[in-house]
């Protein structure tokens, strides 16, 4: 890498960090709403076009077949109220299929590019918000979503979800070696129900944390389904080819 | 494998009862005697140190108590002087049986201190035996850190509590 490229890349990185700081800052008002009160959380109300997910209605028509993993992790449906039992009822038997498919980390090999060009595109993102150039306000299209918009989308989604990634009792245990890979396919109105969440796999499961695998998957699921951490309002124009299909890697391990 | 003679058990039991009769080590909660033996009745009924009594022992020895360093059961020169005076009295009163209590300060764990207290009591007992007191006249008991005499949580209190006490029946 040449010196100019290194400088350019450095500037791009700095600009990006700045971008996310600003984006994060814009989220503050929502995040600082009271979160511990046991009442419904009213979330941003202002962007009519992008419905917030406060109520998270189940999608009307979308009933996809779930992947095997999720299927295996969903408990049996409850039966009608059992008539008085006279003996302890064991838990319904459940077979948990473990698929430890490797979850490739998103690692794009660094490639040469024009620093100035990428910087300018980033700066436009900083000043004008996500998807300005693409957001025509029209109905959905299959127009391609630029890579920078895609990365901005994912960072906003991650920022929204992360405060609800609660390890609870799993924190500080061997469970923290387990990375859960989740796919979410939100509705266009921003809502998300369990049927729109697919478990793609869990990595790092070993003999000392196997008993926590199910709870780690559920911690990731709860993070995306928690009504306190709805998806942020995202541009409708970037739904297709953008935030309609999202993969999240939940990495509990402490960064040092 | 360990074998214990019946006489040893009886001796221990009777010594323990003698100890039980001692208000110093067993305050107000005397347990009922479990076996058909009774402790020696040496209760004095008149004033002045009766020969062979606790008062006599206390009046004619340097002290009934020796003190130890932290986590130690070593007998130092000061302890020796005290134990020598005790040995002399015990030799002069050959019918008196004694109990030697071992104690610890609170800055040890409970079970270790039980063992350490027993070690201290035995250190005193062994010294007295070397000075001519028959081992069969002496019973050791450890109270670990369960019976301090000084109540503070400071070095001075702990020093007072690290002790072995030779107890003569009243």
């Amino acid at each position, binding site marked *: 890498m040449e010196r100019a490229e290194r400088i350019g890349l450095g500037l791009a990185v700095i600009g990006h960090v700045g971008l996310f700081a600003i984006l994060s800052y814009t989220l503050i008002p929502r995040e600082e709403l009271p979160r511990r009160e046991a009442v419904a959380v009213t979330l941003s109300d202002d962007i009519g076009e992008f419905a917030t997910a406060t109520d998270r209605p189940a999608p009307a028509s979308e009933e996809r077949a779930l992947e095997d993993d999720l299927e295996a992790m969903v408990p049996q449906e409850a039966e009608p*109220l059992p008539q008085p039992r006279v003996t302890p009822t064991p*838990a319904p038997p459940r077979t948990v299929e473990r698929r430890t498919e490797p979850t490739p980390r998103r690692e794009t090999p660094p490639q040469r590019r024009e620093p100035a060009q990428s910087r300018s595109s980033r700066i436009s993102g900083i000043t004008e918000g996500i998807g300005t150039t693409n957001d025509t306000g029209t109905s959905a299209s299959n127009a391609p979503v630029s890579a920078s918009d895609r990365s901005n989308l994912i960072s906003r989604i991650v920022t929204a979800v992360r405060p609800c990634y609660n390890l609870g009792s*799993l924190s*500080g245990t061997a469970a923290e070696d387990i990375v859960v890979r989740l796919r979410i396919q939100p509705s266009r109105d921003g809502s998300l129900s369990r049927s729109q969440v697919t478990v793609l796999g869990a990595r790092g499961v070993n003999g000392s944390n196997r008993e926590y695998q199910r709870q780690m998957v559920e911690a990731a699921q709860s993070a995306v389904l928690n009504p306190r951490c709805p998806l942020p309002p995202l541009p409708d124009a970037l739904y297709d080819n953008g935030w309609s299909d999202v993969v999240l890697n939940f990495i509990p391990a402490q960064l040092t | 494998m360990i074998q214990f003679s019946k006489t040893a058990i009886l001796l221990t039991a009777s010594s323990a009862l003698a100890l039980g009769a001692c208000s110093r080590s067993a305050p107000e909660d005397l347990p009922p005697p479990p076996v058909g033996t009774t402790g020696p009745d040496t209760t004095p009924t008149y004033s002045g140190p009766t020969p062979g009594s606790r008062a006599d022992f206390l009046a004619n020895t340097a002290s009934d108590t020796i003190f130890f360093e932290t986590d130690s059961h070593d007998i130092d020169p000061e302890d020796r002087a005290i134990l020598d005076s005790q040995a002399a009295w015990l030799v002069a009163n050959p019918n008196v049986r004694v109990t030697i209590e071992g104690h610890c300060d609170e800055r040890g764990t*409970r079970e270790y201190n039980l063992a350490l207290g027993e070690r201290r009591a035995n250190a005193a007992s062994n010294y007295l035996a070397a000075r001519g007191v028959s081992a069969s006249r002496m019973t050791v008991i450890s109270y670990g850190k369960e019976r301090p005499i000084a109540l503070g949580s400071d070095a001075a209190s702990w020093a007072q509590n690290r002790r072995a006490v030779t107890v003569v029946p009243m």
Partner: protein
Amino acid sequence: MVFRIPSLSAFRQLVLGLCLAALGSAAAAQDDAASGPIEGDVVGGISNPTSIAIPDMPTPRAVGTPAGNTEDLGRQVARVIEDDLRNSGFFNPVARQFLRDVNMPQVTAPEYPAWNQVGAQNLVQGYVQAGSNGRLTVGCYLYDVFAQAPLERAGYEVDYADWRRAAHRCADMIYARLTGEGAYFDSRIVYVAESGPKDNRVRRIAVMDTDGANHRFLTNGQSIVLTPRYAPDGQTIVYMSYQNNEPRVYIYDVASGQQRLLVNAPYMTFAPRYSPDSRYVVFSMAVNGNSDIYRVAVSGGAPERLTNTPGIDTSGSYSPDGSRIVFESDRSGGQQLYVMNADGSNQRRISFGGGRYATPEWSPRGNLIAFTRLGGGFRIGVMRPDGSGERILTNSWQDEGPSWAPNGRVIHFFRTPRGNSLPSLWSVDVTGRMVRRLPTPVGASDPSWSPLLD
């Protein structure tokens, strides 16, 4: 500043996560108009108690029982469950004023949106019913409110007098399902109740449920009693008593209230612990200033000597498979931890840190040994059986005597303040979080957990 996140480290993770996301997107930028899912990393979980709603349990028919009306029992069962879960430290029960009334049909058909409104992540519903057989049935249902899905259910039938046990078992089911850990609420604790000043303290063996209920004294305080331990089968308690001014180990039969001497020796016996199969007791005996470790069959017979060193060997504790014993010895100069085979062979030191190590207790899971570390203060710690991975969990003037919960996740110990004060029982999570005092009627020391009750 950015988010309200509980700890500084969590905030640092967030910042780092943002930086990583920035780097990732910068790297991806050249690949314009990519297709497929967009992908990102959520790095660094937080650790908060889980919000859980435990509304009063309805009854299909309000019936009077010796333990009270079933309608009232439904309320009390819910409260016992709530207290258990809260005391674990991992759950934050929704305040009762926000809870909704639940009727019988709703027990199996929760109103998820309503529970979402009160902020509950999980929901516990159930019912209490008096059976014609003179027994009480408690149905217990656990739901995931976010996912709108049932997670687990179970029913428990108990005698009326044991209604609290049904509640504990329901709480155990919930705890185990949501944490991945083993259960432990439906168990008991034996300990030494202490009262009076330091130099004239009265000590009694006492037992209670893990939540402090059903408290009972087993001895009357005439003799010093120390270091009780529940047998793994829960039938007996082994402890040390100064009865007759002879410090000896006794076995107390819980059902009959009878006690008997473990070993008929003219020496102090102390530091008793059961083997995992309840058939042996490992203990220490002090002979002429030398304490060693022995074991003896509970059914009787001669003790077998396991250690033979001039030092103090004591506080032996079996591994859960019964094959090994961890103990403390000062053979190297100060107290340190050693492991040996159950027959006394292959003794080797496992602790090498500064200060002294004492009172080791092998976890029922087998993976850790809890101990007291002395040096400065007395602190509770854990290490792996090979001595690696040492972690100190508490920090106080004097914490000692660790004892494991049946699930190997929680440790009880006792804490003694400076000066002429009474000790008290505390618990700590094996991660070092959630140090909590256990309420007892008087001072308390030497806690020991029973196994899970049947």
